[in-house]
């Protein structure tokens, strides 16, 4: 037990690296917020574009979304960070992580928004158009408000899952929590920083998990 405490709960090591972990937590929050904003906004934009039903554009959207849903996020990050520079496209590790995760969230949220738009009965479109609303007005004022409500529970869960992937940034040395914990671990050869990092994630994400649960019951689909 003493040995356990000394290896996993070594206060000296923890106190030494706690500021680094805190710094990492800030980076994690920044990436997560940036991913959520960019991912959901672009996903909604694609779903709206898809509602115009231009055949070529829709085909392109389906292909892009499918590819982004089939590839592991870590593969996309590594592709951006290690493969793109060989054709002259350079980006920082932060940008690679942010862009990869935003694209993944874009793909998932586009699918969810689109499923919501399709789920709004056709009669609503027809009724709105026949009262003189334009296509865009119908979409904005009649269809989207109903569609978005349907999509909130699945979208929240997916978004939470993707924001946790910010930890993947550690692989390309983005200075977020896991990276800080890992480098502290290798400097001190003591796993306490890893535990500290884990605690930091719990503090950040347990409220998020509970928020997800609350949303799920609040907006539960009535079967």
């Amino acid at each position, binding site marked *: 037990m003493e040995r*356990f405490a000394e*290896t*996993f709960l070594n206060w000296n090591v923890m106190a030494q690296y706690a500021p680094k972990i805190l710094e990492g937590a800030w980076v994690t929050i920044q990436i997560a917020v940036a991913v959520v904003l960019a991912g959901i906004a672009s996903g909604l934009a694609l779903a709206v574009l898809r509602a115009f039903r231009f055949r070529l554009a829709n085909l392109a959207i389906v292909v892009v979304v*499918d*590819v982004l*849903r*089939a*590839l*592991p*996020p*870590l*593969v996309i990050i*590594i*592709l951006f960070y*290690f*493969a793109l520079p*060989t*054709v*002259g496209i350079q980006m920082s590790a932060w940008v690679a992580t942010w862009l990869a995760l935003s694209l993944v969230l874009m793909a998932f949220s586009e*699918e*969810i928004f689109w*499923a*919501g738009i*399709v*789920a709004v009965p056709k009669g609503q479109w027809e009724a709105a158009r026949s009262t003189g609303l334009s296509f865009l007005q119908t979409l904005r004022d009649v269809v989207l408000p109903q569609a978005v409500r*349907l*999509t909130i529970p*699945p979208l929240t869960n997916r978004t939470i*899952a993707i924001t*946790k*992937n*910010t*930890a*993947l940034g*550690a*692989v390309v040395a983005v200075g977020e*929590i*896991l990276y800080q*914990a*890992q480098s502290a*671990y290798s400097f001190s050869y003591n*796993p306490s920083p*890893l*535990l500290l*990092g*884990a605690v930091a*994630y*719990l503090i950040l*994400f*347990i409220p*998020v*998990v*509970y928020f997800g649960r609350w949303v799920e019951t609040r907006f539960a*689909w*009535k*079967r």
Partner: protein
Amino acid sequence: MEALIQSFFNFGILAQAWPILLSGFWMTLLLTVVVVPLGLAGGLAVALASTSRNFFLRTLVVLYVDFFRAFPPLVLLMLVAYGLPFLDIRLGAFGSVALAFLLNTSSYYGEIFRAGIESIPRGQTEAARSTGLSALQTLGYVVVPQAARNVTPDLISNTLEVIKLTSIASVVALPELLHAAREAQSLTYNATPIIAAGIIYLVCLWPLVRLLSRFEHRQIALH
């Protein structure tokens, strides 16, 4: 264009890297067939425990599920792979991945199974029990067959995520597909192996993505 082909679709390099990629592919496949059934079994146990009448067991399971859902899988994997050896528990790379995945995926699968079990009205269990079926028979013949149908899309979706997630095993140097691709890249100084790995993931997982997309539309349309 020439440069793009040279660095991304270089067949000479591909031929050189192919044996490494192929062995990586087999490792990913092996990982999948170990980790998915383990997660399903663990998830079923979690779900059964969470519907038990024992208050302490139920509370314990809720804590377990929330705890592991709040942890990014990569953080959990690092903790298992680098932390446990300090307690003289040496699982090796494969064992560490299997354990981390069991903890992570069983909580996700558990939530899905629980939702499925709760979607079956209590009256059905009572009716089945009153006709003389045992608790186990009720579960096996009445509840699970209906519950499984209700949650099939979620099960497929989670399984897709688990397969994609196996790519994080590369971080603890398990030679699966992504690890193989990175190794081949560093041997050949060329990004073709990473592109090839991406294409392999895409070819294998695209059918699942298509299937899922159809399920999702039906689910939201039937809300």
